[in-house]
């Protein structure tokens, strides 16, 4: 019997080729629960997908793992997309996954919280980054599904409020795996177009799964990087998506977004009338103020009796002159008194004054004052001077 003996590697390669030729196995969605999750340091993810009865080994390479909107966890229910193949080294058949999305409410909520926390930490929700919504936009870009109720709500509310605002519609898918990419791309494109003053991005109500695209990081980042202010309008009042947190303004519904973005034409006309009234009142006020000032100035004394000031100055001058005269007289008087005092003091020390008291001065014939009796001789003629006159006499004898 002619046996064909295969090598192990040949078998594995053959089975691998069988798997890879199968159309179904090369493009499949699988739902399951994650277990044995390992995020390897290389960036690749390894885990098992299981249901109640079975399990499959799964790999997600780094390039795809990086794109994930959330971090898979053990016990999380997911829908995975990828292909089946065989790892020849071990003969282990496994799924090579390229896309994962959380499945079921619990997983979605978990993923939502994960994304929210991550982007919050990264600063994508910072209030300081939020742009102001312009009060009078000329053009509004609307990114939403062309078929949903949302677009009609947006158009009709906008038209009712102000038919002069231009609406530029950019239709996108708002649901399913392609939606997030299309929405993010549309935001980038509208920015590149550059003619919109505001972007409204949104959709009508739906389940958490339906709204999921608006929770994806791609959309969040596109909104974050948009230079044009973005209003999010996703679902109903109670629906909160990541897009709402990043957007510059969150509208509870698409209709509300139109109400926020589109200024009412009637109000604009009214505002203009108000401004016109204010301008008129202000110029009137200013004129009145100036007229009043003119009046007040012209009613002043100096304007009415211009010579008054001159008279006042004259009186002042006369007063000054009087003051100067008085001052000079006072000084003269003071000096006179001083001089009198001095002359009296002088007199009191004059020799004549001493003579008055009964003293007399004696001179010789030459007129020299004789101060001693000694030296006078008998018969010498002397002059005796009293205070009131002088006499000539002769020395008789010394005593």
């Amino acid at each position, binding site marked *: 019997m002619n046996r064909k003996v295969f090598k192990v590697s040949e078998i594995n390669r053959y089975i691998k080729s069988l798997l890879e030729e199968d159309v179904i196995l090369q493009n499949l969605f699988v739902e399951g629960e994650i277990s044995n999750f390992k995020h390897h340091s290389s960036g690749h993810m390894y885990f098992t997908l299981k249901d109640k009865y079975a399990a499959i080994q799964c790999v997600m390479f780094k390039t795809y793992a990086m794109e994930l909107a959330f971090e898979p966890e053990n016990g999380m229910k997911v829908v995975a997309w990828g292909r089946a193949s065989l790892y020849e080294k071990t003969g282990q058949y496994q799924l090579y996954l390229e896309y994962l999305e959380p499945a079921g409410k619990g997983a979605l909520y978990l993923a939502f919280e994960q994304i929210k926390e991550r982007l919050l930490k990264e600063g994508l929700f910072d209030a300081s980054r939020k742009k102001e919504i312009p009060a009078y936009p000329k053009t509004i870009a609307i990114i939403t599904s062309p078929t949903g109720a949302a677009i009609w709500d947006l158009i009709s509310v906008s038209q009712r409020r102000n038919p002069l605002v231009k609406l530029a519609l*950019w239709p996108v898918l708002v649901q399913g795996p392609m939606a997030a990419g299309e929405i993010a791309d549309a935001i980038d494109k509208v920015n590149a177009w550059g003619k919109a003053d505001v972007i409204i991005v949104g959709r009508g109500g739906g389940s958490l799964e339906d709204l999921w695209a608006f929770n994806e990081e791609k959309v969040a980042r596109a909104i974050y990087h948009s230079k044009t202010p973005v209003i999010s309008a996703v679902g109903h009042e109670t629906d909160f998506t990541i897009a709402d947190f990043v957007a510059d303004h969150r509208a509870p519904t698409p209709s509300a977004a139109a109400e926020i973005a589109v200024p009412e*034409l009637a109000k604009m006309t009214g505002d203009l009338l108000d401004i016109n009234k204010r301008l008129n009142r202000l110029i009137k006020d200013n004129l009145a103020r*100036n007229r009043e000032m003119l009046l007040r100035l012209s009613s002043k004394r100096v304007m009415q009796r211009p010579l008054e000031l001159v008279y006042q100055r004259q009186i002042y001058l006369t007063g000054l002159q009087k003051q100067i005269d008085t001052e000079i007289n006072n000084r003269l008087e003071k000096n006179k008194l001083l001089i009198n005092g001095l002359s009296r003091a002088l007199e009191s020390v004059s020799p004549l004054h001493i003579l008055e008291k009964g003293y007399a001065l004696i001179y010789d014939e030459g007129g020299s004052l004789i101060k001693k009796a000694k030296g006078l001789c008998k018969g010498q003629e002397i002059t005796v001077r009293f205070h009131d006159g002088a006499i000539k006499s002769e020395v008789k004898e010394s005593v």
Partner: protein
Amino acid sequence: MPPKKKTFAKSIERLEAIIDEMENVDTPLEEALKLYKEGVELVTDCQKSLNSAEKEIVLLQQNSDGIFSEKPFNLEG
């Protein structure tokens, strides 16, 4: 070509600044009159723009060369 008209938003912004300045009692009369004239002209321009703007709803598209085009959007369609 006449100088480009200010946008409505820019005009309103300027009008608010004009009113602020006119409200200041220290603004001299000559200056106030100048501001008043500018303000009234702006209001007139704005009113005109509200009457003349055309309503428009377009479908924004970009071709493979990256050129944007605006196609009229049919409300009934």
